[in-house]
């Protein structure tokens, strides 16, 4: 029995993909015994890099994919045992795709989906007008979808997700690949919708750290199919408060990771080339470690160009948990 206050609950949810023989025939573990609880009325974020298992999880919850083992409940209903009932409570929006019936106008596309959900025609048109205005697309209602830019198309897809007023909404990377302004509009829209519908639940996947930080009540950090941490963004960042987070810019050194390898007090490190210098993000167990870090780097020929002490971000939390940045591919 799933408690009434939970919108989503998973129990040891696991998904294994078996590649075809000609693709190597091996098994890929996409989700590894995921246990998650999302409360009703919550905007819950799933933060992780590409390939972490976020979309796989959403697809299982949306009844599009079966788990290999474990169980998942949406609105208290088992997604495997009664998918038809689950679908009455949910909707989903995926980012980074060019879906939509191009021959139809924006309004027609949305109206048709409203019909899928049994929304009376007049009510559907009222909601469409209202939602299109909110995302700044009221003047595009009669435009055929194939004339829309990818950003406009994504806004239409976001409206499609909210149009049916779902009890639980899955947003899978809704701002992926969008320009800053469009992404901001969509985030603003999500916030406003939740303010007006406080009983609704959103499960958002993203690999944009600031998006999760800005929008989510709670965030789960996921990597290689496993949930590594789950708490409010502030609480997650608080876990690093005893540590010291620094950003260094170095010249004359190509690999700080190798230089500081095995050094006591260095909890995590990420580096990348930036404007001809090496940017190094460091999480140290305490500030005092910095002195010996700098000495070691100088001994390896590095010249310190800039040093900043940073407030911990979710990116740093991820770095501390996983040992690499969100944007870095898993080795």
């Amino acid at each position, binding site marked *: 029995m799933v408690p009434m206050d939970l919108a989503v609950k998973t129990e040891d949810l696991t998904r294994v*993909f078996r590649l075809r023989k000609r693709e190597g025939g091996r098994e890929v573990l996409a989700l590894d015994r995921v246990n998650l609880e999302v409360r009703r009325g919550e905007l819950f974020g799933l933060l992780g890099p590409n390939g972490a298992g976020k979309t796989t999880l959403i*697809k299982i919850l*949306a*009844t*599009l*994919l*079966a788990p290999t083992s474990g169980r998942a409940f949406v609105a208290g209903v088992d997604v495997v045992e009664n*998918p*038809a009932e689950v*679908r*009455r409570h*949910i*909707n*989903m929006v995926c980012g980074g*795709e*060019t*879906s*939509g*019936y*191009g*021959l*139809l106008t924006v309004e*027609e596309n949305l109206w*048709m*989906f409203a*019909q*899928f*959900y*049994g929304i009376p025609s007049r009510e559907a048109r009222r909601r469409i007008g209202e939602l299109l205005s909110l995302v700044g697309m009221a003047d595009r209602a009669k435009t055929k979808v194939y004339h829309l830019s990818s950003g406009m198309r994504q806004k239409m897809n976001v409206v*499609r997700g909210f149009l049916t007023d779902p009890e639980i909404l899955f947003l899978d990377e809704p701002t992926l690949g969008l320009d800053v302004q469009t992404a901001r509009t969509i985030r603003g829209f999500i916030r406003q919708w939740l303010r007006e519908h406080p009983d609704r639940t959103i499960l958002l996947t993203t690999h944009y750290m600031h998006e999760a930080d800005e929008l989510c009540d709670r965030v789960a950090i996921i990597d290689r199919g496993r949930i590594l941490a789950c708490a409010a963004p502030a609480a997650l960042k608080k876990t690093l408060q005893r540590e010291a987070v620094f950003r260094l810019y170095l010249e004359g050194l190509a690999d700080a990771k190798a230089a500081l390898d095995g050094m006591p007090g260095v909890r995590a490190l990420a580096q990348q080339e930036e404007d001809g210098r090496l940017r190094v993000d460091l999480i140290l167990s305490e500030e005092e470690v910095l002195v010996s870090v700098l000495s070691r780097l100088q001994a390896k020929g590095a010249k310190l160009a800039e040093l900043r002490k940073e407030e911990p971000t979710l990116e740093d939390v991820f770095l501390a948990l996983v040992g690499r940045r969100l944007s870095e591919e898993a080795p």
Partner: protein
Amino acid sequence: MRRLREAWQGFKAGAWLGWQIESNWTEPFLFAIYSVIKPVAGVLILVFMYLVVAQGGLENPLFPQVFLGTTFYLYVVNVLSGISWSVHDDREHYGMLKYVYMAPLHLYGYLLGRGAAKTLVATISVLITLAFGMAFLRVRLSLGSPGLLAAALMLGLAALAFYGILLAGVSLLIARHGWMVGDVVAGGLYLLCGAAFPLALLPAPFRALGLGLPPTYWLEALRRALLGAGLHPELAALSDAQLLLILAGSTLLGVALSAGLFRAAERIAVRRGLLDMQTMY
């Protein structure tokens, strides 16, 4: 009751969308021209083959039989392969199959709706082709058995739709090659069900296969209804009622097979994660 309502919702929305896709791709004027030219060009190819290659004459009693069989075969192409194409189109082209699937509607009903739109389009083509044949190819049709015509049309189209759903189930499972399922089946049926020539011309094993196919009986019933006689001596012993009974039986079989197999295909597709697979082929 709720599932029935959702199936009806899916049917209505599928039919509306299907009609938009079929008719809305160009200006109404161009669509009207296309709707006339396409079926007429198709029938002219047949006439050319019949007159030049087979060296038959328009007065030969075989010609109206071949003409009628080929004309009504348009339904097979449009409805049977059209429904399975919808799965491929929604998944690969529009990227919308997953959203359709996760809506609270009956996918089966939705696909039947898409099939209804295809039926409407095919009906326009069939009527235009029949009118062309009567006006220019000396084809004489009579409505001697309107009851037989109505019953055969209804049962045959229903059977086509349900077998189309069955093929849609196959399309669900073969994401990469889903587009060809309908084409292959429609092409094979054209050869085997005696649409363009008598079954007697086929080698014995293919003839036996043809006699096991519902469209063979459907076309035979339509020929009897509109021309007063059938094409195949093998079926001459069957009365009109027996033909309809066979059609009704095959329709029921289609309902049972499509319901069971489509459901099974759906389950496999969910297990393998095929519902949103875009192969970029």
